[in-house]
């Protein structure tokens, strides 16, 4: 269970400023029902660009509702110029902190505010820039770079906590790591290819793998295997015991013996049975 601060609980149970201002000067909507949280923020300003009324509607968990409520309280009485400076950390701090898995709730508040201010200023809502990295939550590389810089993040997990990217299928984790390496200036770890094995090393490794990984399994079923010769990538073996008469011996050789040898020795190996 999450540990929410008393202030988060208080704002969740008694949210301030719930609703919509019908003739609002600024409207900002972020998130969607499929993402699991969404926020619609509306505000009204006076002639001095001071926010006189602000309301929200939120779909989401307790911290999403509390973050929205807190944001509206922070905005009241501020000028647009002052409001612009509010960051997600300010929202989280106002609430006495948020569990790190819930930081995206405060980010959602900041994003809704930005959109609402852009709307007020009559700026066209810019289409998302950059290429989509996280397909599940529609997060672009530009947004990830921004989150990395602004919140000084250094792990894929943190990126997920803040802006959700990588929280779905996980296919984009490598790409996010690349972006982290780029932004933090770390050189990606280069995997050097192992030097080519000598024939002796290769044969020894095949023997070891047979002893350790393969023979014990075959022996349980009363079978055994013997290494006859190795020619290049061709491994010649002889089957003994119950394996030699087993109708599934071919499957054993290809699906088990060959797979194991490819896994532990060389991916190009081909296993052949000799009589």
């Amino acid at each position: 269970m999450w540990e929410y601060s008393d202030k988060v609980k208080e704002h969740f149970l008694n949210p301030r400023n719930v609703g919509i201002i019908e003739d609002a000067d600024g409207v900002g909507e972020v998130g969607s029902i499929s993402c699991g949280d969404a926020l619609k923020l509306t505000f009204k300003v006076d002639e001095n660009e001071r926010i006189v009324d602000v309301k929200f509607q939120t779909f989401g968990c307790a911290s999403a509702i509390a973050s929205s409520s807190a944001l509206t309280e922070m905005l009241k009485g501020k000028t647009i110029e002052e409001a612009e400076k509010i960051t997600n950390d300010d929202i989280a701090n106002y609430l006495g902190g948020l569990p790190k898995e819930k930081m995206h709730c405060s980010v959602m508040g900041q994003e809704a505010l930005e959109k609402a201010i852009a709307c007020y200023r009559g700026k066209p809502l810019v289409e998302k820039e950059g290429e989509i990295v996280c397909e599940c939550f529609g997060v672009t590389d530009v947004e990830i770079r921004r989150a990395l810089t602004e919140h000084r993040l250094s792990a894929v997990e943190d990126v997920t906590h803040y802006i959700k990217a990588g929280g779905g299928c996980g296919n984009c984790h490598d790409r996010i790591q690349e972006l982290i390496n780029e932004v933090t200036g770390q050189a990606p770890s280069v995997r050097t290819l192992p030097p080519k094995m000598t024939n002796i090393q290769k044969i020894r490794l095949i023997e070891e793998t047979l002893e350790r990984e393969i023979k014990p399994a075959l022996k349980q079923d009363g079978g055994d295997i013997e290494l006859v010769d190795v020619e290049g990538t061709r491994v010649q073996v002889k089957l003994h015991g119950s394996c030699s008469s087993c109708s599934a011996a071919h499957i054993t050789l290809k699906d088990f013996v060959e797979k194991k040898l490819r896994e532990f020795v060389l991916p190009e190996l081909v296993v052949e049975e000799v009589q």
Partner: protein
Amino acid sequence: MMKTVYLDNNATTAVAPEVLEAMLPYLKDHYGNPSSMYGMARRAATALDQARARMAQILGASPEEIVFTSCGTESDNAAIWAAIRSNPIKRHIITSRVEHSAVKNLCEYLSHNGYQVTFVPVDDKGQLDLDYLYDHLSEDTAVVSLMWANNETGVMFPVEEIAREVKDRGGVFHTDAVQAVGKVPMDVGRTGIDMLSLSGHKLHAPKGVGALYVRKGTKFTPFLVGGHQEQNRRGGTENVASIVALGKAAELAGNLMAEENTRVKALRDRLETGILGAVPHAVVNGDTDQRLPNTTNISFEFIEGESILLMMDEIGICASSGSACTSGSLEPSHVLRAMGVPYTAAHGSVRFSLSVYNTRQEIDYVIEKLPPIIARLRQMSPFWKSVQAG
């Protein structure tokens, strides 16, 4: 003090007073190691025998077919590892897309470590695609592992029928029956089930004890390698007090099974009908015909589950949710997603799971208190107004 209405019995259960009473002497006075050679140890060994017999009885098994473990997850792991280690040539496993993480995550691990795993899909009611299952069953299949009843929805699979089919084709069948034991009458000896997992704390015994049924003649290699305990099938000094508790809990469950399927079922139905009658845009997830008597999983559209749970917690109601926010991930329940429950509903799902300790007053309290919570959260939701507007 605020009263607590505990409706999360699929997560864990209260230890029954009779169970606590039965186990205490083995923590206080009879602390001997059952393997030792004196009176106090013999007393512990006799208590184990009695617990084993009680456990066997509720399952329809023989005492020597029961292996005590530390939990349901251990039982599941022990069963699947035993099946694949005993048949090392076979490299294929069949399971479903809606298993508990004890089976699901192990199978996913195995799928990255040399095994081919078939995850059988389910339909919108959470029922298995049996043709898909049988089409994928082959000579290479080391084990078929399917849950008896789903922890989230309560949907029951026809495991006895599937076990028979798997058996006829020479396969090994394991079932995770953690949610089903004590709620569904069982006679495993007469079925094709080779191994069956169960857990103590879902059955009014304490946490930290479980059991695995292993049919006589099933090839088995221990998961926990060590001493000769449990007939060489599970090393480690027996958790005597908790095993005694599990035995007592099994006996109680046997006596209460009829009540579970009449009074508790009626309470569950009352809760479900009451909520659906009072809350619009609420739907029950899963097959209501083939379902545990104590479970209902209801989706409240356009709001999010964690918010519902925390508001219920304020008034003493305990339940759980398949929403993303409560799972610690960003994706809602894999069970509901596998059933094709739309996101709009999956995020707002709440599971209520009852026990014999629940009363009609408690259920009526929930029926009275829940609808205003749902209405309040919907008033806050940006999606609710658009639905209202049509």
